[in-house]
């Protein structure tokens, strides 16, 4: 009996030692809420990236251990989960939920001095509203999206355009960024429409757009079902003005749910399928999981690799050293145009290069070639 107890104690000690040897990274995702379509693939990218890092020996000789929590995109739950992760010993938190939830987590990470990063959120306010030196954002900003789209559209010399979005918080935030940039460029917005979540048609909104005779339509919505309603009404009414869309159209699901409706639509993306890093990632992901990755997987993959890179350069899991290393990031990942590197200019914590986005076009119901790169 004594031998058995001693054996159990030794086993428990071994498990404990193993647990101490891992580097704990918290991940706050959304598995059932509104952000699930984005959060889930991004989280799969994080998990794949962590496995790959661990297969190659880990970081500082230690394995990465992911502590994954589901906040349902609810800010109230999100901050409690951030606290839980800090208490569990996470040295870094990756936020792949909705922007408002990520913002709420900052109230904890700022106080607990725990590094936190979102590799995919695009709301511009995340690094400007709170002066949190422990927070970074590496997803392309909403303002970068519209600036890139506009740079592409500049050659068309638009004077009158229409804007349409949905009533989600993110859809509204992106529409606001679109509107500001369009007005700054001296382009008149002749119709500004909203399709509500849960609508069964976008016919009235599209009729108003048709009556306003814009030269082009800018789509800022992020809800897939409502965007499909917009395309359906566009097709049914037989309108011809070109559609320029936010990054939401970069999610490949449109190839199936909007089949026959999307040819010719241009959209901004942070993913260039011809980039070497992308080709390597796609091949590795396919080999590792048997599935084709989306661009959203790339956000998560880059996220965990950026964290690992910072810890490596910090040479320690000390949170303050990781913070300093993170701010000095200079890393080429999967996302972004060819040659783009993530880095944080002095005083800034948004690390996606403003010239790192591309504009692509749907061709034969498939995401097609890159038409334009950057804001020039």
């Amino acid at each position, binding site marked *: 009996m004594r031998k058995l107890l001693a054996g159990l104690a030794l086993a428990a000690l071994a498990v404990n030692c193993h647990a101490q040897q891992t580097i704990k990274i918290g991940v706050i995702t959304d598995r*059932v809420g509104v952000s699930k379509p984005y959060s889930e693939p991004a989280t799969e990218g994080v998990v794949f990236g962590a496995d790959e890092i661990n297969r190659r020996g880990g970081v500082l000789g230690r394995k990465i251990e992911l502590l994954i929590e589901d906040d349902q995109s609810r800010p109230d739950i999100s901050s409690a989960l951030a606290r839980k992760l800090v208490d569990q010993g996470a040295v870094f938190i990756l936020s792949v939920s909705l922007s408002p939830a990520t913002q709420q987590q900052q109230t904890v990470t700022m106080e607990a001095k725990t590094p936190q990063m979102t590799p995919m959120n695009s709301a511009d306010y995340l690094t400007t509203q709170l002066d949190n030196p422990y927070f970074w954002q590496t997803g392309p900003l909403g303002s970068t999206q519209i600036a890139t789209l506009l740079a592409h559209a500049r050659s068309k010399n638009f004077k009158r355009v229409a804007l349409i979005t949905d009533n989600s918080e993110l859809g509204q935030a992106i529409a606001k960024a679109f509107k500001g940039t369009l007005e700054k460029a001296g382009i008149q917005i002749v119709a500004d429409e909203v399709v509500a*979540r849960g609508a069964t048609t976008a*016919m009235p909104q599209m009729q108003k757009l048709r009556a306003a005779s814009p030269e082009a339509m800018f789509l800022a919505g992020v809800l897939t079902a409502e965007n499909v*309603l917009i395309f359906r009404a566009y097709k049914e009414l037989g309108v011809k003005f070109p559609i320029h869309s936010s990054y939401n159209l970069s999610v490949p699901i449109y190839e199936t749910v909007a089949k026959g409706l999307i040819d010719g639509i241009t959209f901004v993306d942070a993913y260039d399928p011809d980039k070497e890093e992308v080709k390597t990632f796609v091949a590795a992901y396919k080999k590792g999981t048997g599935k084709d990755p989306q661009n959203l997987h790339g956000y998560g993959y880059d996220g965990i690799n950026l964290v690992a890179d910072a810890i490596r350069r910090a040479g320690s899991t000390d949170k303050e050293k990781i913070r300093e290393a993170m701010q000095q990031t200079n890393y080429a990942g999967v996302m972004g145009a060819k040659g783009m590197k993530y880095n944080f200019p002095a005083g800034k914590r948004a690390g996606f290069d403003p010239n790192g986005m591309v504009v692509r076009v749907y061709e034969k119901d498939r995401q097609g070639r890159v038409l334009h790169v950057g804001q020039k």
Partner: protein
Amino acid sequence: MQDLLELAVSATASGCIYGLIALAYLLMIRPTGIINFAVGEWAMVAAFGGFILLTKYEWPYPLGMAAVVAFMFVVGWATERVAVRPLVEKGAPPLAPILALLGVLVVTREVISVSFPPDPLPVPFPFGIGRLEFGPVGGSYQSFFIIAVTLAVFAGAWLFFEKTLWGKSFEAVALNRRAAALMGINLSRVTALSFAGGAGAAGLAGLLVSPNISAHYLMGVPLAIQGFTALVIGGVGRVEGALLGGLLLAFAEQLTARYAPIPSGYTQGVPLLFLMIFLLVRPTGLLKARA
């Protein structure tokens, strides 16, 4: 004028969907007094059923549609047996089954959410994507299909309640449960059938709307709210009230969005405004039950 006629077709189709959801509520409220907010989730379940049978396994549309509606009848019947009847038999207060059904709502959504991929899933159109025109009136094939199916369902429901003995027994239970029981009407059977019928109507709404909005796990709650608003407008007294309420709501929504001189975002408040006005001014709805 062309805009108005196009919008009339679109609003009628949307109103039919709201009307079917309102009918689902009504079928259960009339004999039992129970408001079942899980009807939206039932519509969602049927939409996913459409994805599995019609998209994944490519069943012929009529067969797939019949199978999904039949499955929904079973879902409604099973829900009554599992979540409602035990509470009623134990003499639980009237609020208990309503709360239990809210639980069903949450469980259903979470099960679908974790069982399917996160993105909206496509459900095919029975007649493809195209536009049908009758003189100046034009609309999509699907709009006309939704209108035709809904009118057939409401005609069937009206005939059932007005012309059949079974329908009369439902009405008798709605008027006075105890007296109906004393007259030999099987209350348990009427309750189970009302839930089965409600699930069938809600499922049909989900299946009809899903080619337009795709099958996704968040589609249920907006449909439940729109259907409930339609029910409040039309009244719970008569079957045709559900359709009338649905049509009025959809026309109000779409005409406001198209013609009202207010920012587009504010038009989302129209259903809520309707709901409040009717609850305050005419809580019995437009159509009252026959004496």
